[in-house]
């Protein structure tokens, strides 16, 4: 076998390996979310240049939107954000409000919204956008179960994201997880505001986030809070902290699962 042929084979193998294992991810780095346990489970934070999926039930749509906006705010690093959404989801759960976004501490000036009429055009637009390295993040918001968002579509998006370094966030409302090439997959619910006096400030976005899939680490379930002033997630401040820190690589489900009624 000639040397040239061997080296060609080696190149091809290398390419396949990169596609398969998504090791490219590490070139673009990770962004810490601000929640200690989650960051350690994610090996330093949310991977850039990858696809992340956030699922929720229909009525939890606003909480999931807040979570996705938080992730997008963390990964996009002052770069523009493209929000692709289906016409239908606006009817179901309201339009993304820029005033609300500003209240979360994020910058509405950097948001460009695409109103896609159907899933096909939404998917195609997101694939295009993910290939454009000027963007910080692309959010694709889909309502309900869709046949079109299958493994092939998901692979396409992943490849585009890896090529450009743009992070793709899939917000899947009222849908069940399907096999995909996502780096992480989350199930989101709203969490109660911390108990306190009636006049105390409440209502900071608080999420009950369950990490269902993590290509490079453990899964788990945590309560997260979005800190609007510092623009990052944090541990719920008023929840009792575990006495001993849970080992980073193996979060104790008994601790992270507990939820207190408000």
């Amino acid at each position, binding site marked *: 076998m000639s040397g040239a042929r061997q080296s060609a084979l080696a190149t091809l193998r290398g390419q396949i390996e990169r596609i398969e294992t998504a090791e490219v991810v590490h070139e673009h780095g990770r962004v810490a979310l601000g929640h200690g346990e989650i960051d350690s489970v994610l090996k330093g934070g949310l991977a850039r240049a990858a696809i992340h999926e956030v699922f929720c039930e229909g009525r939890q749509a*606003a909480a999931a939107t*807040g979570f996705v906006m938080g992730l997008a705010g963390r990964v996009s690093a002052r770069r523009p954000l493209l929000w692709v959404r289906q016409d239908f989801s606006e009817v179901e759960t309201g339009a993304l409000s820029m005033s609300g976004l500003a209240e979360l501490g994020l910058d509405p*000036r950097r948001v460009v919204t*695409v109103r896609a009429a159907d899933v096909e055009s939404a998917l195609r637009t997101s694939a295009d956008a993910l290939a454009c390295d*000027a963007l910080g993040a692309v959010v694709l918001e889909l309502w309900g179960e869709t046949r079109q968002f299958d493994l092939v579509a998901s692979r396409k998006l992943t490849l585009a994201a890896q090529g450009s370094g743009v992070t793709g966030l899939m917000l899947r409302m009222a849908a069940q997880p399907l096999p995909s090439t996502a780096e992480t997959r989350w199930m989101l619910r709203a969490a109660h505001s911390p108990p306190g006096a009636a006049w105390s400030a409440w209502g900071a976005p608080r999420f009950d986030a369950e990490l269902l899939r993590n290509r490079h680490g453990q899964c788990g379930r945590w309560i997260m809070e979005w800190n609007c002033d510092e623009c990052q997630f944090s541990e719920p401040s008023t929840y009792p902290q575990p006495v001993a820190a849970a080992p980073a690589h193996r979060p104790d489900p008994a601790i992270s699962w507990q939820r207190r009624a408000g």
Partner: protein
Amino acid sequence: MIHALDEAAGHLGLYIGQPLANARAMCPDLKVFDADVVADAKTLSDIADWCDRFTPLVALDPPHGLFLDITGCAHLFGGEAALLQTLVRALGRQGFAVSAAIAGTSICARTLTRQASGTIVADGGEAEAIDRFPVSALGAGEAITTGLRRAGLKSIGDVASRAPGEITARFGARFSTLLAHALGQGDAPISPRKPLPDYIVEKRFAEPIATDTMIAMTLSRLADTLIASMEKQGKGARRLEAAFFRTDGVVRAIVVETGRPVTRSAVIDRLFRERLDALADPLDPGFGFDMVRLSASRTEIVVQEQRDLDAHAHDNDELAALIDRIAARIGGKRVIVHLPEDTHIPEQAVLAAPAQHHLAAAMQAEWPVRTESEPPLRPLRLFEKPEPIKVPFATVPDGPPHQFTWRRALHAVVRVEGPERIAMEWWRQDGKQLTRDYFRIEDAEGLRFWIFRDGLYEGEVFDGDGSPASPGWYVHGLFA
């Protein structure tokens, strides 16, 4: 009434405007079809589209005329006579009866078509060419034509021989202007259907093309030529139109708009590819296109900037290009940016504007600053139309509800903050709107709502007989 008739019917003595019963009496085996004015106008407009291949300046002269300004175009078709012949033959083959003429002024040419089709009048020969024609050929209207005939002025020459003052005094200034134009003294500009594009390039084919590859290749070659000619003058295209002329006369125009002036042919190429790809009714080549034209109908001067060192500017360019591509595929109105509006009314606080035109403005917009260390006071998701909820009762009339039903699900209120009173803008004249009291609410599940009571208690809402009614409750948004 007879709306239109063919040559044979004309020979029988029928005329336009004659009552149908009279016509039937003169000619019992008359074939009658209902007039369809709309379809006629459509056909005329289609023919005008087709005529675009001769000159970009085509004007409609309803009900059945077209003006073509062929200044500077005739030599492309082998001279005026050849152009006239091509046009008449091609239309004749399609089954239209055409009378056409070329003259120095549009009115003179129109007069000629009515009496001597196929005539070409050189500049200065207008008066001589039309002076023996009857005055009806001027097309001045029934009243004036009859008036002229009664005055004994049978031909245009007769009218022209009178002093202009007399004609104006008797028939009005409009008629005398028309007459002057017909005689070649001054010309009224025609009003073309489309504005003249700044740059046009076109390609004709002896053998019509039909395949997608050929069409794409032609477009990209045309784009190269167009860019080259724009570059010389430092221009970039903001609006591009590709017109496909089918051999059977149908013309399809496809428009692409961009947010920034385009100066690279590869970009034009890509935009058209996206557009053609996403057409709801795909380009139908039929028996092939025999001409493709690419025109830049809106252009802008391009400011050359030093871009290499400024990564931010590069990003903005890339974003603008991406927006153009998406807009070409799904439509410019579907890609939007958001601009703050100076109002307290939540649903009007943000203006959604097309991103292609407002990207720069949106990037520099001034948004209201949020209060530090406060939870979000505005919901992340806002319903375009507030959704009514059922509230059984409130303990205090002005207070928040204890529970409510929204979308058939009962929500128990756990935490409340409010009211935040938002009064409607009384200085606007769009009907009487009620004052709203907004509450932030968290239910037992942790979901957070933004609900409001539409109207004050015992102040604004009344039922039929004028006694105070209880105001309605709505959910307007959802907090994260």
